[in-house]
């Protein structure tokens, strides 16, 4: 009973975090599934989004304008990775790692802007002093300050916007680039440019997620994006495993990422309450993602083997 009680208490927080990370998961979906590129920039661009948003808000900028700037900063990070990949011939994974590493220094600089040291690893922002869009403080309150309705609205708008965009001629070209690069080029599509564009959109979304997360937790930190790609992948894969048969439409597939993210955070709350040490969370997440990534492969291996066994049996029958 006590277990359930504490879990229920933690549920709103899990949903809030799940929604924020759901935006990040949509960004990962766009690179990983639509563009067929594993982009590791996100670990850095998430923190860039948080740092940019907090710095500008502290400086007196309207928080929504600050979030827009965070999105632009994230898109810039995606642009750099995209240019590393398409113009310098660096494999996508490595290009993302390079940008991610570079962003570590840049994020320190952003958060240390105007300080005497010039770099700083955390930047706090208090909801009492600033008119923030979301804050975890009100997560259990039944009031307009509760972040969940706003996050739901934001996600609905984002999914609508992305659904429209990926249905346009440019969006179709990006999808074709991810589906089959040879075909795309043969149909006159500039695959390099579309890959860059996809990476920019993805990292813009990830930075938006970072900007919301920093407000939600009341600070931007240098390591807030550590392992973000794995959490994003976890959300994408959980969403696919549960909804792949149900959700065929593109907008619903994006929604599945958000639901996957919420499920991920609820599960995390459960295992934490079952006694898992917070420090072991990343190990737990990595193992879960590894298993879910391996399942389709194992399934394939099994069906190959059973098929060859059937064939062997047939042959033996024929020979007999």
């Amino acid at each position, binding site marked *: 009973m006590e277990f359930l009680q504490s879990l229920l208490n933690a549920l709103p927080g899990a949903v809030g975090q799940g929604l924020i990370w759901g935006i990040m998961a949509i960004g990962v979906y766009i690179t990983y599934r639509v563009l067929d590129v594993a982009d590791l920039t996100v670990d850095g661009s998430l923190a860039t989004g948080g740092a940019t948003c907090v710095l500008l808000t502290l400086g007196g900028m309207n928080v929504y304008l600050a979030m827009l700037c965070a999105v632009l900063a994230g898109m810039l990070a995606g642009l750099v990775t995209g240019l590393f990949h398409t113009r310098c011939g660096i494999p996508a994974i490595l290009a993302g790692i390079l940008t991610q590493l570079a962003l570590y220094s840049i994020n320190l600089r952003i958060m240390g802007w105007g300080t005497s040291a010039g770099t700083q690893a955390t930047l706090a922002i208090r909801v009492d002093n600033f008119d923030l869009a979301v804050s975890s403080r009100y997560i259990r309150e039944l009031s307009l300050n509760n972040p969940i309705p706003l996050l739901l609205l934001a996600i609905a708008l984002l999914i609508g916007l992305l659904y429209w*965009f990926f*249905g*346009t*001629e*440019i*969006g*179709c*070209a990006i*999808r*074709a680039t991810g*589906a*089959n690069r*040879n*075909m*795309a*080029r*043969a*149909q*006159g*599509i*500039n*695959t390099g440019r579309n890959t860059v564009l996809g990476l920019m959109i993805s990292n813009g979304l990830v930075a938006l997620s970072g900007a919301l997360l920093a407000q939600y937790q009341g600070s931007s930190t240098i390591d807030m994006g550590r392992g973000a790609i794995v959490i994003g992948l976890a959300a994408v894969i959980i969403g696919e495993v549960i909804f792949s048969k149900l959700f065929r439409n593109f907008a619903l597939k994006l929604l599945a990422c958000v639901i996957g993210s919420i499920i991920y955070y609820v599960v995390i709350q459960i295992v934490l309450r079952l006694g898992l040490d917070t420090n072991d969370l990343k190990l737990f997440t990595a193992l879960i993602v590894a298993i879910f990534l391996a399942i389709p492969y194992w399934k394939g291996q099994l069906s190959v083997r059973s098929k060859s066994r059937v064939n062997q049996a047939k042959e033996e029958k024929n020979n007999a």
Partner: protein
Amino acid sequence: MLELRHVSKTFHPGTVNAKTALHDLSLTLNDGDFVTVIGGNGAGKSTMLNAIAGTFPIDTGAILIDGKNITGLPEHKRASFIGRVFQDPMVGTAGSMGIEENLALAARRGKHRGLRWGISKIEREDYRALLASLGLGLENRLSTRAGLLSGGQRQALTLLMAALVQPKLLLLDEHTAALDPKTAEKVLELSDSIVSENHLTTLMVTHNMRDAIAHGNRLIMMSEGEIVLDISGEEKKRLTVEDLLERFSAAAGTELSNDRILLGA
């Protein structure tokens, strides 16, 4: 119409794997020519088509279409006047996208892609009619993913896509090699009718001598990156498989022995 001037291409130059795929190759195609290309493994047939399409840069020489030098043009820009069908049915279409989406992508080849909707209602009706002309029942499966189609269906769809925006040049790279004989014949028939309806200048690589003789108005045979035979007009019409074998060994100085070349079924 198409002109290759002294085109050479060596893969992996300066290594033990260096392979001269095209050797000072020159070729001129006239408007409306339907040229079949035949030759052994590694003769440079596909390399020639890929060089024209811009898959890789060539080492020396020039490629011109309608007098315009396209040697330095990237692949996706050449696509506005070159239609292609590949050997592997998987390559020509986007498997995770619908039949109509694939056609809509092809309809925008060489055009500006903006923020208009990726496929219009009018287009959809056009595609339905176009697909009905194939007689494969695809007109009722517009939103079916291309990946669910058979190899022959995918090649037929790719052919439609290649000709949807009238290209100046059609490149068919052994596009029936991966199909069973019956399907291959159907796809070849379709190729013939698309080429003649649109008066397309066409290069068709094949490994089937009989097909090479039966289709087109001109036949070239390649060996070691060079054109060793070029037969057209009345002479091509009278050509037999035996003639071809004889003339090949006379021209290339070796017997044509290759397990991949089919002498004809």
